[in-house]
Every structure is written in structure tokens, then in C-alpha cells.
């Protein structure tokens, strides 16, 4: 059971994401009918799954939410900003409910009550049906409930399991996409037969059929062929089945029909298909009349055998009612966007695969290296095969890496919620702008970014944005904007968070830092030094400790989290214009192009992304400055020269650089410098191996890699090798705190 539960909650994550994407689309005016349908299906599936686990509050709330979406779908109401805001809060609350259910936490009784009331006000439950839905929503309810003593239906304990194979009433799968309607020639053919349970619960097929009549023109015919003599039949079987033909009104879709049967879907066999009545105008698809079930599963459509079939499917995950069995829609080629089929795989397995492929690549390189040492002619079949192997292992590695990469969308959507919540708490009006949310980042990285980003956003809302009045006074729109942006830049992932608030009040920051003894009044601090005080432990600029931030954790925590990920955080602020913080993260586990160099016999790799030019010994125009500082004259510019061996502590300062090759590098900030090395060997692809896993991060070193001979080479962190403005090379590594955030 717990497996099913886990699966349900995993599925909920996906569904919530769909919902959130839909909300964003609506908000940005990109929503269409399918957006709302998708949202509806998500909420519906969550409700359905909730039913299986008896999550009453969740069901209740999801149902009210669903009603609103339903009205929206049928265009009874309009998605105006107020409604979208309500739906956002509903989304958040639904998320809370799901989380609470997952962790078995209780949330306050009255939490969300006002949202629920609002939802109900927008879309009052109809015809008293709403209350039944709660009881009934679970197509998989039988997995958890026994059927009670009063229904003595015979030997099958799971008798009223959802005959899911046939029924497939869940509107979630895209197969249930709206069928092409409106041209008047498509009709729905509905086969319906009731389980005894349907009658024993007091449902009446006639009422259902009448409800159908509201959707269009219905023709009903009953099949009485299976009716047994009363004495034989007992109460265990219901033998009547019906065939209905519905010529739908405009806008009526299969989902609408399913909805009529929603309350009884677990107690009947329902099959909906499209047929063509009259002439088929534009189609050369003769068999619009459906693939029968037999195509997909051995599920005959009589009620009793359906139960057997269901029994077979009973072990199926309850949270996945969407077993794709009844593909009720023929391949009309319209609107049936194929669902990206996915599987869930344990992350450990993926990691193992990635490691193995990494080793394969290394072995391949080793093989190639030893081949080169053998007297094999260059165009022999062996070297050809090795060439193929190289290509293959490269492609294999790329594909495997892609498995772990996930778009940051999910993370951003969580953050968008934080913006909503914290702006509400702070009494400020803020909206979130997401850019580049399809940027793919390693899953581990996205997970570990949640905490720091949450904190940063709270900070921006709380300290960055001004109140609406202040904003208007400053000539800005009353609503503040928090912009979250992701991009791949020079081999790293860059995530930046900016607000259009007041910027850092440096006078105030300095005053506080002085009062806390972090700096002395006579210290000469640059603007960026002052900004960086925010990263000092225990710093809080809020006058009063607010609910949002200032709980004693400061940006220092954010910074150490980012550093633990091998990243850096950068802060820029312009008074009156806003503040932006940029996180730059390595693409872990990735393959990288690098230049292999040697220093004092040690091999090192300089990432090619940062490399601009290489200069062999003697080519460079080197100028000496005091204390052994050297500059390289390049195109009228003097660039600092950093001796890599000295910076990494491999040797003392060299008396001259005559025998050193120089690598011209450019950092993320656009600053350039030249690295002095002993020899440049070659450019090659390397597999990044993190150092933190078994050791810890090392200043100046981004990661390690394994060379063809099995030796380890360290990968230089070029950004840390570029002296920051006004900093000496030594402070660069020793005073890492400054270098990191400058």
C-alpha cells in the first residue's frame, strides 16, 4: 500500500506541475481551452487519487477547485485576474494539502477555509451532486475499502473494483482530449452496463440517461438478451446493458459525457467511442468506429467478465488509473498530441549508469592511448574501430547525462509560490517573472537550490521591494517584480534573481555592520565591500524581525549552501533600481572540453570555455611590476599574469616567465587574465569528477578528472584565478570570502 501511496504522491507532483504551468499560462494570457482542460484533469486526478487514500480534506478541496475549473471550461465564468489570483491561492493550498497528506501532517482545520469558501462562491456545487462525489471519487476505492456486509455479491471480494480496463473513466489521460466536434457529423456511441453495486447504491441509469440528454440528442437502446429468469439471477448480476448514441451539442466533449457517469464510474462498465452518423465529410478513415478493447487487453465488455479483468489489474498502482487500455479515439490525426511517455527510475540507478559510462569513456581513452603507442598503421581496421568506439561512447555519455538533467521549471514554480506567499505576508504586491525555465540542470542541483532560493526570494520581497506607496512615490509601478532567470553560460548554470526594489541601503548596512562590530568606522569600504557585508553571518537589516526573514539565518547560509554545490554567488545593487543576485553553478557530472597543461610535473586542466588564446614561451610581451607582479601586454591592454603553479602552491614565485606558456582566460564577469603554465599538452574532453564527494572543495580547483593513463588531473577554476578588481593575487585565494562574492 505504501508503494501505491508513494506513487500517488509522485504523480501528484507531476499533476501539480501541470496545474502550475496552466496557471502561469492563464496569467500570461497564453491559456486556451486545452490549458484549462489539462488543469481540470490534474485536479480531477488528484481528487481521484485522494479518494483512494481517504484524504477527505484533499478531496473536498480538490472538488471545489475542480468545479471552478469546470465552469471555466464551459465558459460560465471568465478567467479574470481575481479568479486567477484565487486559483493561485487554491493551487498553493492544494499543494499544502498534498504535502500534509504525504507527510501525515495535520494542517490547521481552518487553513484554506476562506479559499474553499471563495471557490464555492464562484462555482456553487451543483444539484447536490457535489456531496456524493466525495464518497465516490475514487475509482480505486476498492483497494482500500471492503465492500460491506450488505452487498453480498458473491465470492469476489473485490467485486466493485473499478473495471478500469473497460471503464477508463478517468479524464486525465490525453486520450480523453476533446474530440473534434462542431461539424455535426461525429456522434458518441456509449455502451453502458451497470454493476449490481450501482443499483444497491441507489443510482438509476434512467437518471443518468436523462442527464445525457442535456448534452445532445440521445438514442437509447437496451440489450435484454442476457436477462435471466428472476429465480436464476438472484441479486448478484445485473444483466441489462444499454447502447446509447449521442449526437452532441456544440462544445460537448467526451469528458462531459464521462462526467455524467462520474458518480457511478466504479460501478459500471462504460465505453465511449466516436462514430460517424450520416456521411463522413472529410475523412478517409473508414473505421472511426473504434478499435475494440480486444486490441489492447482481453477485456470483454460484459459486466461479469469485466470484473475478472479488473481482478487482474488490481495490483496495478492505484494512483495510476490512467491505464491506457481503451483508446477510445481513432487516429483522426486531430488534437491527439502524443503524451511524452515517461517512466520513473530510481535516481541511484541512473547514477550508477552514469558512473559506469564515465568509466567506459575513461577506458576508451586509455585504450586509445595505448593504441597510439603501438606500431599500428593509422588507417588499419583497428584504429577505425577505435574511432567508432570513441564516437559511440561519446554519444552514450551524452545521452546518459541527459537523463539527470531536468528543466528548472519545477523549481521556479515552487519559487513563484514563495513570491506569492511572502508578498502576501509582507503586505506588498509582487509578481514573479520567470525566464529560461526550460534550462536543464542536474536534478540534485535543483533540489539543493530550493532552500537558498527560498531564502533569497524572501529577502528580496522583505528587504528589497518597497511598499506600494513608496514605489508609487518613486515613480515605479505599484506592483514589484521579482525576476528569476536561468541560463547556461560558459559551461555553468547561471541563475539570477533580481528585484526592481530600492536597492541596498549601503549607509544603513554599514551602520548596522559597525554596530555589530563587523567593520570599524574608519574602514575604507567600497560599495561592493558593503554589499558583501550582507553575506556575513548574523546580519539582518530589517528594523524589526519580520515573519519572513531575519530569523537569525542570513545570506551567509545561502552562500555556504551555494558554495557546497560548487557554486558562487554574486550580488549587484543599484540604489533605487533594485538588487540582483546571481548564482553560478557548475554543471556537475558533465563532460567538459579542457586544455591539458603541466606544472611542476602535475597535470592540470583549464576549461576551454574560459580560454581565449594561448601563447607559447617567448611570444608574450611581459612587463614586471613590484613584488614580482607581472602584466601581459595584449592589444594595448595590460592583463595580470597569474602563475598557476604559485597560485596553487606548487612552487615559489618564478624569477622569470621566459619558459612559461601563457593561457589567456576570461571569467564570467568579462575580466581577463593570463595563466602561466609550464607546458601546454593538448585539448581534450574530460569527465568531471567532483572533489566534494570524498573530500571537500579546494580553492582554485573546480573538480578533477581522470586521464587516459588513469592518473588524476585537477580542473582549474578559472574564475578564481582572475584577480578581482583591487585585490592582489594572494588575497584571491587566501581571502576567499572576498573573492567569492566580489
Amino acid at each position, binding site marked *: 500500500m505504501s508503494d501505491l501511496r508513494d506513487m500517488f504522491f509522485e504523480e501528484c507532483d507531476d499533476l501539480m506541475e501541470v496545474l502550475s504551468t496552466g496557471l502561469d499560462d492563464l496569467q500570461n494570457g497564453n491559456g486556451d481551452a486545452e490549458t484549462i482542460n489539462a488543469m481540470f484533469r490534474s485536479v480531477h486526478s488528484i481528487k481521484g487519487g485522494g479518494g483512494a487514500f481517504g484524504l477527505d480534506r484533499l478531496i473536498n478541496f480538490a472538488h471545489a477547485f475542480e468545479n471552478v475549473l469546470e465552469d471555466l471550461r464551459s465558459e460560465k465564468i471568465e478567467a479574470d485576474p481575481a479568479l486567477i489570483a484565487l486559483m493561485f491561492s487554491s493551487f498553493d493550498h492544494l499543494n499544502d494539502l498534498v504535502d500534509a497528506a504525504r507527510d501525515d501532517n495535520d494542517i490547521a482545520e481552518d487553513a484554506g477555509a476562506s479559499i474553499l469558501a471563495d471557490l464555492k462562491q464562484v462555482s456553487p456545487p451543483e444539484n447536490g451532486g457535489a456531496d456524493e462525489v466525495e464518497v465516490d471519487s475514487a475509482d480505486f476505492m476498492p483497494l482500500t475499502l471492503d465492500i460491506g456486509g450488505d452487498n453480498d455479491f458473491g465470492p469476489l471480494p473485490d467485486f466493485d473494483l473499478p473495471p478500469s480496463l473497460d471503464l477508463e473513466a478517468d479524464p486525465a489521460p490525453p486520450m480523453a482530449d476533446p474530440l473534434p466536434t462542431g461539424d455535426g457529423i461525429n456522434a458518441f456511441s456509449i455502451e453502458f452496463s451497470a454493476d449490481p453495486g450501482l443499483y444497491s447504491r441507489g443510482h438509476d441509469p434512467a437518471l443518468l440517461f436523462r442527464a445525457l440528454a442535456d448534452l445532445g440528442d440521445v438514442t437509447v437502446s437496451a440489450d435484454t438478451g442476457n436477462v435471466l429468469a428472476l429465480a436464476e439471477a438472484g441479486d448478484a448480476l445485473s444483466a441489462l446493458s444499454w447502447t446509447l448514441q449521442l449526437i452532441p451539442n456544440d462544445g460537448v466533449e467526451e469528458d462531459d459525457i464521462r462526467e455524467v457517469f462520474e458518480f457511478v464510474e466504479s460501478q459500471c462498465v462504460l465505453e465511449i467511442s466516436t462514430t460517424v452518423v450520416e456521411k463522413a465529410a472529410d475523412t478517409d478513415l473508414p473505421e472511426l468506429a473504434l478499435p475494440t478493447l480486444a486490441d489492447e487487453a482481453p477485456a470483454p465488455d460484459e459486466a461479469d467478465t469485466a470484473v475478472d479483468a479488473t481482478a487482474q489489474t488490481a495490483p496495478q498502482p492505484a494512483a495510476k488509473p490512467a491505464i491506457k487500455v481503451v483508446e477510445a479515439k481513432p487516429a483522426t490525426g486531430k488534437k491527439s498530441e502524443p503524451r511524452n511517455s515517461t517512466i520513473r527510475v530510481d535516481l541511484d540507478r541512473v547514477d550508477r549508469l552514469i558512473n559506469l559510462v564515465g568509466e567506459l569513456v575513461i577506458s576508451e581513452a586509455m585504450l586509445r592511448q595505448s593504441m597510439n603507442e603501438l606500431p599500428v598503421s593509422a588507417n588499419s581496421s583497428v584504429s577505425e574501430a577505435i574511432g567508432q568506439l570513441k564516437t559511440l561512447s561519446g554519444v552514450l555519455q551524452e545521452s546518459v547525462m541527459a537523463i539527470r538533467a531536468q528543466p528548472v521549471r519545477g523549481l521556479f514554480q515552487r519559487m513563484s509560490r514563495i513570491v506569492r506567499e511572502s508578498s502576501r505576508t509582507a503586505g506588498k504586491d509582487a509578481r514573479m517573472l520567470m525566464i529560461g525555465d526550460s534550462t536543464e540542470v542536474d536534478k540534485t542541483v535543483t533540489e539543493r537550490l530550493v532552500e537558498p532560493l527560498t531564502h533569497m526570494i524572501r529577502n528580496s520581497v522583505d528587504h528589497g521591494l518597497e511598499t506600494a506607496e513608496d514605489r508609487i512615490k518613486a515613480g515605479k509601478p505599484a506592483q514589484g517584480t521579482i525576476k528569476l532567470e536561468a541560463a547556461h553560460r560558459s559551461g555553468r548554470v547561471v541563475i539570477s534573481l533580481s528585484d526592481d526594489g530600492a536597492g541596498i541601503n549601503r549607509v544603513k548596512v554599514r551602520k548596522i555592520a559597525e554596530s555589530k562590530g563587523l567593520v570599524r568606522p574608519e574602514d575604507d569600504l567600497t560599495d561592493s565591500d558593503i554589499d558583501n557585508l550582507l553575506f556575513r553571518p548574523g546580519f539582518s537589516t530589517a528594523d524589526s524581525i519580520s515573519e519572513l526573514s531575519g530569523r537569525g539565518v542570513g545570506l551567509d547560509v545561502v552562500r555556504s549552501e551555494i558554495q*557546497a554545490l560548487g557554486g558562487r554567488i554574486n550580488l549587484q545593487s543599484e540604489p533605487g533600481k533594485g538588487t540582483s543576485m546571481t548564482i553560478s553553478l557548475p554543471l556537475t557530472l558533465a563532460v567538459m572540453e579542457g586544455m591539458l597543461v603541466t606544472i611542476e610535473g602535475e597535470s592540470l586542466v583549464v576549461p576551454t570555455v574560459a580560454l581565449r588564446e594561448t601563447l607559447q614561451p617567448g611570444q608574450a610581451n611581459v612587463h614586471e611590476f613590484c613584488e614580482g607582479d607581472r602584466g601581459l601586454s595584449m592589444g594595448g591592454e595590460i592583463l595580470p599574469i597569474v602563475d598557476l603553479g604559485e597560485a*596553487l602552491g606548487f612552487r615559489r614565485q618564478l624569477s622569470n616567465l621566459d619558459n612559461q606558456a601563457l593561457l589567456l582566460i576570461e571569467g564570467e564577469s568579462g575580466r581577463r587574465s593570463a595563466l602561466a603554465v609550464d607546458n601546454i599538452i593538448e585539448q581534450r574532453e574530460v569527465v568531471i569528477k567532483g572533489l566534494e564527494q570524498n573530500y571537500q572543495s*579546494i580553492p582554485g580547483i573546480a573538480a578533477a578528472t581522470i586521464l587516459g593513463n588513469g592518473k588524476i588531473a585537477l580542473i582549474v577554476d578559472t574564475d578564481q584565478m582572475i584577480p578581482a578588481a583591487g585585490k592582489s593575487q594572494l588575497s584571491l585565494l587566501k581571502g576567499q570570502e572576498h573573492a567569492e562574492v566580489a
Partner: protein
Amino acid sequence: MSDQTTEEQTEDRIEIVSFTIGEQAFCLNIGHVLEIRGWTSTTTLPHAPEYVVGMMNLRGAVLPVMDLSLRLGLGKTVPESRSVIIIAHIDKKSVGFLVDAVSNILTVNQADMQPTPEVSSARTAAFIRGVYTMDDTIVRAIDVHQIMPQDNLVAA
């Protein structure tokens, strides 16, 4: 995954891997030991404590090798072909310990461990959990959690 639990699971009897550094005998709980390898050259790490000899490649994993002798204050080991690296897994990290030689795998009574003698220096007190007496020698039990390189460079 502390020693405590490992030891309780095997009740009183535990297996230890004993090894020598100079004239002294030390041991690790076998639960921590992944494998024992001959000396391979390592890649020097910048800005690392002196006792971190460098990084080695263990079938694709990159792990640090520590000179246990230097870490214990017994002088720097000059690696030679007879030197041995004990690959251990401690606190979710893999690490190699450079030692002179591995002597034996012994089964001892957990209760037989005696406290470290009072004469200890601070370093002994920190790194040695206690001693087992074997005939006329003593085997020093290393406190694996203390011996690991401390995260002094990153605030993590």
C-alpha cells in the same frame, strides 16, 4: 552507520584489520575497510593539509589519500612499493590511508578494548579510541571519524 551500531550488531565480537606504521600497530573496524591496495602515485592537491598526500583514482572514483603516519604525528611516510593504501568508507566518504603494511585480520572482544592511556598527547587522545592488548603488543584503535580531514576550508 557509526561503529557503535556495527559493533552492537555483531554483539561483542568484532573483526579488525590491523596494520603498522613504523613500529606501532593500529587497527580499524573491518566494517570500514573496503579494500587494500598497493601504493599508486597520487595527484598533489593544492591548499591541502600536509597529511593529505593527494588524490587517487579508484576505478573511476576520485578519493583523497591520507598519510596516516603524518596525521598521527609519527612523521612523514615516504611511499615505497611496499607501502599499502587501505581504502576505507567513513561518514559516507571514501578515503585511502597510506600505511606501512597490513598485518592481520583479527577477531577481538569489544569489551577487551582498554581506554587510551592517560599519558596521551592531545593528538593521541583525539585519534585513538582505545587499545587492544595482543600477547605482548598493543593495537591502537583509530577513531575514524576524528581522523578524517576536517572541513576547514569550506563552511559546510
